[in-house]
């Protein structure tokens, strides 16, 4: 399943790259991309565990860039 999330307070392009790299490495994530310009993160992950994986993603992003918040709809 592919889903897009809005990112708040993503202030640095390099951090966006780092977030993307870190999220891609998570278990169950097929693909991820962070667009610094659109302030959006697109995640393609296992359907069954999606919510679980999202928790991991949020945790992971918090570590890489604590200022940035993922808006979970």
């Amino acid at each position: 399943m592919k889903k897009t999330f809005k990112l708040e307070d993503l202030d640095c392009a390099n951090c966006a790259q780092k977030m993307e790299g870190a999220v891609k490495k998570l278990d169950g994530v097929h693909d991820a991309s962070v667009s610094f310009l659109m302030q959006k993160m697109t995640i393609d992950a296992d359907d069954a565990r999606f919510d679980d994986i999202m928790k991991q993603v949020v945790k992971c992003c918090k570590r890489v860039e604590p200022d940035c918040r993922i808006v979970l709809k």
Partner: protein
Amino acid sequence: MTRKEKKALARILIAGALLIAASLAPLEGLWKLLAFLVPYVIVGWDVLWKAVRNIAHGQVFDENFLMALATVGALALGEYAEAVGVMLFYQVGELFQSHAVGQSRKSIAQLMDIRPDSATVLRDGEPVETDPDEVAVGEQILVRPGEKVPLDGVVVSGASTLNTAALTGESVPRTVAQGDEIVSGCVNLTGVLTVQVTKPFGESTVSKILELVENAASKKAAAENFITRFARVYTPAVVLGAVCLAVLPPLFMGGWATWVHRALIFLVISCPCALVISIPLAFFGGIGGASRRGILVKGGNYLERLAKVETVVFDKTGTLTQGVFEVASLHPAQGVTEGSLLECAALAEAYSNHPIAQSLRRAYGRDVDESRVTDVKEIAGRGVTAVIDGQSVAAGNEKLMADMGVKAASGSETGTVVYVARGGKYLGRVLIADRVKDSAPAAIRELKARGIKTVMLTGDAKAVGQAVGNALGLDEVHAELLPGDKVEHVEQLLAKKSPKAALAYVGDGVNDAPVLSRADVGVAMGAMGSDAALEAADVVLMDDDLGKLAAAMDVARKCSRIVTENIAFALGVKALFLVLGAFGLASMWEAVFADVGVAVIAILNAGRMLRGK
């Protein structure tokens, strides 16, 4: 300016004033340090805080950490003014960066402003305002003047003109009336329309376009991938360089303070931000700018390849030509008028649904009085015979004329020829041809002016293909090809081109999907409303205007030039300052310019993609 930016500006101004005051005050020792620490903390506390926090999270090569290390190092060396100044400059740069990126984001948002906010749906005869997502297929919606068409549909009643500029870049409004299909994203200009919805919002044109443009950012160009890889290596490498510079030379010749100071300069230059922001921004601006002109590019990689296109291969029917048969010319025999020749042909073909018959009736223009026509016989591979007003008429090819024993005059025209005979007497011939698009000649000229080789592939007869090729001045024409042959020909051309150049294939996207995907860049035309074309191609021209092709290439080339400029400029300046810093010729002030100044200039340069033509 946002509130955040205003706050940052206030901090910078206060710290700046305090820095000047501290420099002028006749203080010594600890008091002097304290006087400089006040502005330092005011302007840099967040950087210091983030540096500490990120280290705790295991982020070592973080720009905050590097800036903190560089300035704390300068304070330790007693370079108080320099430490505060560098932090101050860094924050000014960040402010500029955030403002410039914010502006770019705003112009991108404007480009993407085709999403309708609401739809007025008619339920039980009453207009109800609702989310476009909640309108079902088959429901009727009301579109008032000034509103965006929210969903794709068919006009049930009303007539109006539509502004399609947001979708096609075409500024001439399109007239629509009952029975016409309309696509979402257009702006209704004059009259109220009632529209029967044919597609749910998620599958409507406007959703597809937005999705496509937003997804475009994830298909990264080679230049973007290069920068990502480079950024990963660059920072650790420069930091390592700084460590070496601080430790190795003083071991042999002493002077620790000097070398540590030079190493700190390295740290200031070690952030790759200028590149990491400005390269994707240029591609994004390029994709956004192109979409405003009715050219959808599905990714930065395609934009990059489009800039390198050296050969453009065209499909003939529907791409260079209109794909509709039309009567091109009438050649009546002596003593016969053009009108009676055409009337006779149209009447004979009154019952046929063949495209050629349809073109004859269209050219005739009036309603065909079928009561005048009897005994119609279609003869496969020959044509048709009928009795019109009591006289036998034959309309068909040369073989039919030979069968009838009629001597027909032949011409040198290319196209499909219909010969007409009445009562055994030759009336003349009608030339039917697929017309070259009005925009084609200029488009081909523009491509040639850019040094691009043009090739046409067609399944049609050699003579027909050659005639179109000559009329347009194409470099190569390959005719009588089966769909499979087209792929083969494109592969041959791919093998022949120079390795760094690219080949674009332009088709209508309907039945040439394999060729579109085989080419470096597949371009589909006239895609408004055609899902097949949107799916298959890498670049989609929203309307039938071939002139967009050259425009798309100009956008791509400009984008690629800006990207090259930014990479060369940013790397050049950084390399220069690393060398100057190592030899003690650059101060930390200059290093900070090399870092943030370059970032701002690169962002402004990339921002050119978002503006104007």
